[in-house]
């Protein structure tokens, strides 16, 4: 953790109420943030742990699990948090040893939270994820994703030779997941297309002309409405959706009163129109509901953004306080690296025989170690240290560099082909019939063509490399006479 203790600044001391304000701002910018009082009590390791476990769970669990995860039991949340922190490389082992029922360790959890905050702009990232998206957005350009290799994964050295079938198995699973993803994406495209088609003419903005999924959802369900609509919409698309949008029956002019403004102007909404879903409201009230909900969402997002700003301004006070929290922790046990072993209590009688057995086992183990050591050394000498050792890691580094260079060259070639600067980032999907003038609009056909040419480039590169591999294999096969190589079936 190693933050140095800063000298106490008398100017900061003057703002005694600054700390609770800053912590309150932090809570407001995080989902399910606990009150400043909980933070204070956590410093002294008071039993406030459950709230902090739940906060960490919300921060660490993947976004798509929002709806279902709230119902997970505390033990499950504790497990998830521990494994997520471990995979990100959290250094303190005390956290991993906290009890599963989530009753203790509030100070440790506070330290974990501040570790996460120190790593990256967490509140801003969360707010960006929960951003209210009105349109159906798709990312047009993936350059940021390509450029950054992703979070650094802690390198795990395999204990022994890994069975290649295991690796093939995992690759196969990955491929199947990929195909399922493609199927889901195709399904999403079909539904988007249906919604865009059925809501023609419903949007007030003439340039757009139809509603997006988010807008449709808000209109369909003005009372409810989930947070983070833009991302969570995919979940709420179900297959009855387009049918309810486009039910064939026309309700009769009911002449009933509008549920909101009590006017008698509720008549049959035109079939296939969105307003048909609100039969008990007059048109202006239905649209009003929609606008009201949108306003609520935007206000919530505003609050979060303002809280994040306030947090950034007063952050320093928080970190000074966290130094004191770290100081309040007991020093870590020196033998923290090894797991504490709990020896079972053995009755007195059995102790003598047990000692004998233990001694014999130890002798046997030494013998075995010796034998395997000799064997292993001989084998490694023959094989020449494949997969391990200094020359292998340098070979691997050289390979990685070559791949990166090739990827960079490809990207450069694409940039040249693309011509004038094309906008990056997410774009809103709009379906329109006529040929609108260019300007800042991107045509789907052009994007598809660009992607196809990139795909062709990459496939050509793949085939070239596969050909090289095959030639290499053929050369190796030819070097050993009398041996027949049967290559695995192409899959």
């Amino acid at each position: 953790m190693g933050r140095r203790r800063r000298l106490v600044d008398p100017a900061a001391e003057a703002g005694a109420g600054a700390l609770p304000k800053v912590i309150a701002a932090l809570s407001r910018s995080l989902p399910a943030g606990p009150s400043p009082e909980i933070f204070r009590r956590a410093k002294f390791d008071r039993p406030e742990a459950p709230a902090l476990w739940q906060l960490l769970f919300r921060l660490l669990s993947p976004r798509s699990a929002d709806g279902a995860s709230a119902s997970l039991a505390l033990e499950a949340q504790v497990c998830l948090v521990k494994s997520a922190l471990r995979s990100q490389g959290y250094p303190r082992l005390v956290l991993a040893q906290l009890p599963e029922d989530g009753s203790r360790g509030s100070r440790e959890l506070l330290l974990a939270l501040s570790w996460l905050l120190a790593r990256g702009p967490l509140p801003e990232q969360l707010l960006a994820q929960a951003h209210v998206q009105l349109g159906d957005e798709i990312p047009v350009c993936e350059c940021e994703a390509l450029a950054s290799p992703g979070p650094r994964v802690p390198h795990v050295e395999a204990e022994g030779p890994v069975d290649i079938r295991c690796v093939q198995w995992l690759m196969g699973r990955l491929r199947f997941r990929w195909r399922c993803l493609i199927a889901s994406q195709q399904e999403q495209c079909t539904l988007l297309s249906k919604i865009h088609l059925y809501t023609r003419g419903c949007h007030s903005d003439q340039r757009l002309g139809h509603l997006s999924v988010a807008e449709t959802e808000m209109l369909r369900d003005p009372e409810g409405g989930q947070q983070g609509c833009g991302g969570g919409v995919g979940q709420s698309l179900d297959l009855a959706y387009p049918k309810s949008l486009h039910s064939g029956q026309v309700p009769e002019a009911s002449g009933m009163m509008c549920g909101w403004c009590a006017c008698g102007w509720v008549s049959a909404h035109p079939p296939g129109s969105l307003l048909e879903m609100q039969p008990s409201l007059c048109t202006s009230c239905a649209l009003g509901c929609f606008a009201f909900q949108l306003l609520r969402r935007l206000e919530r997002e505003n609050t979060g953004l303002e809280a994040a700003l306030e947090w950034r301004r007063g952050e320093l006070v928080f970190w000074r306080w966290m130094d004191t929290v770290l100081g309040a922790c007991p020093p870590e046990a020196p033998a923290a690296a090894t797991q504490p072993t709990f020896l079972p209590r053995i009755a007195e009688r059995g102790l003598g025989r047990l000692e004998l057995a233990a001694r014999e086992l130890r002798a046997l183990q030494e013998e075995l170690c010796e034998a395997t050591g000799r064997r292993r050394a001989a084998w490694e000498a023959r094989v020449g240290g494949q997969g391990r050792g200094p020359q292998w890691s340098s070979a691997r580094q050289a390979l990685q560099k070559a791949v990166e260079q090739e990827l960079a060259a490809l990207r450069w070639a694409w940039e040249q082909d693309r011509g004038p600067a094309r906008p990056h980032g997410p774009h809103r999907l709009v379906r329109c019939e006529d040929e609108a003038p260019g300007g800042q609009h991107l045509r789907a056909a052009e994007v598809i063509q660009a992607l196809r040419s990139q795909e062709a480039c990459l496939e050509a590169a793949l085939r070239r490399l596969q050909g090289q591999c095959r030639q290499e294999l053929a050369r190796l096969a030819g070097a050993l006479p009398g041996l027949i190589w049967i290559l695995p079936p192409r899959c």
Partner: protein
Amino acid sequence: MSIVTVQLGQCGNQIGFEVFDTLFSDSHSSQGLCSKRENEAYRASCKERFFNEEENGVPIARAVLVDMEPKVINQTLSKAAQSGRWKYGQHAYFCQKQGSGNNWAYGYSVHGPRHEESIMNLIQKEVEKCDSLSGFFIIMSMAGGTGSGIGAFVTQNLQDQYAHSLKMNQIIWPYGTGEVIVQNYNSILTLSHLYRSSDALLVHENDAVHKICAKLMNIKQISFSDINQVLAHQLGSVFQPVYCAEGSFHYRRNPLGDLMENLVPHPEFKMLGVRNIPQMSENSLAYSTFTWAGLLKHLRQMLISHAKMEEGIDWQVRPPLSGLPPLGKMPLNKELHFNTSIANLVILRGKDVQSADLGKKLRAYLHQYTKFGIEEEDFLDSFTLLEQVVASYYNL
């Protein structure tokens, strides 16, 4: 997500009919075991998977029927329509006037390419009716002429055209004593071609199902219809919606995707077998009681001791390693099942070809294949592929 079924040949069509019938009756059974809302959710999920909604309310099975003779297809279509509860699409079938004489090569090299466009068009129409495609089922037999030859061809085409969709072939392993003389040849060719283009091969053995019918279900005169019903029951138990607690929809949406990901990720191990219990006729169900733990224990032992029936399980066999985790909450467990009869077949092949007078007889049959473009190299290729498969399984 929906599954499109392609029924090929006499065997495929008859079994396909039984499958749809079983699925439909299962989802509409009035046993009253759960609440109304759950029943409706289950029914909706099953219907979406296998049937298409029509205006007058009669669901249409998402299937394409292919056969070279019109007899079986007509029977199947009329049986379905007569029941009044569900039916096949009016134009969702393809048949010719002549058969293919149980000749694999004829089916693969002649019928296939000739009718490729019509068949693929039919499949395309079914696919377009789906909101989302989970994958394809292809039901065929291994040893016949039409089913196997065309099946191999169609699967290859599906691989080319729908490269991203998942395909599972249900293949019916013929009786050991053989109904068709050249069934071994047909089987080898079918298996090797399918191994290359399909994602998973679910094998049903006629022998095993026959025994189940005889011993456990107390059917005296076993007809193909009975066997098909048992098969359909097995398939239905696998592919009916699986309940899962998470997610807003209580039934998992992508049946094929889930299965495939967990069972056949490795490209060399594609063969699957099905075990299900209890195996008894519907009438006796009412008189027995089961516990979940007991059922699972039986099933586990069946898997370990390679038994295919509930009776006569060898309880002495113990596993060296733990088995694969069960999927979902269904009363079924599946594993990679190495079918020893492949090895038998291949060895038999070798013996036959070497022995002198049998060799002459089989050489005569070989002529039938070379007539239509399947050369000896193709046979050798198929043998090699299958030997590899056998070797991989041995080394597991």
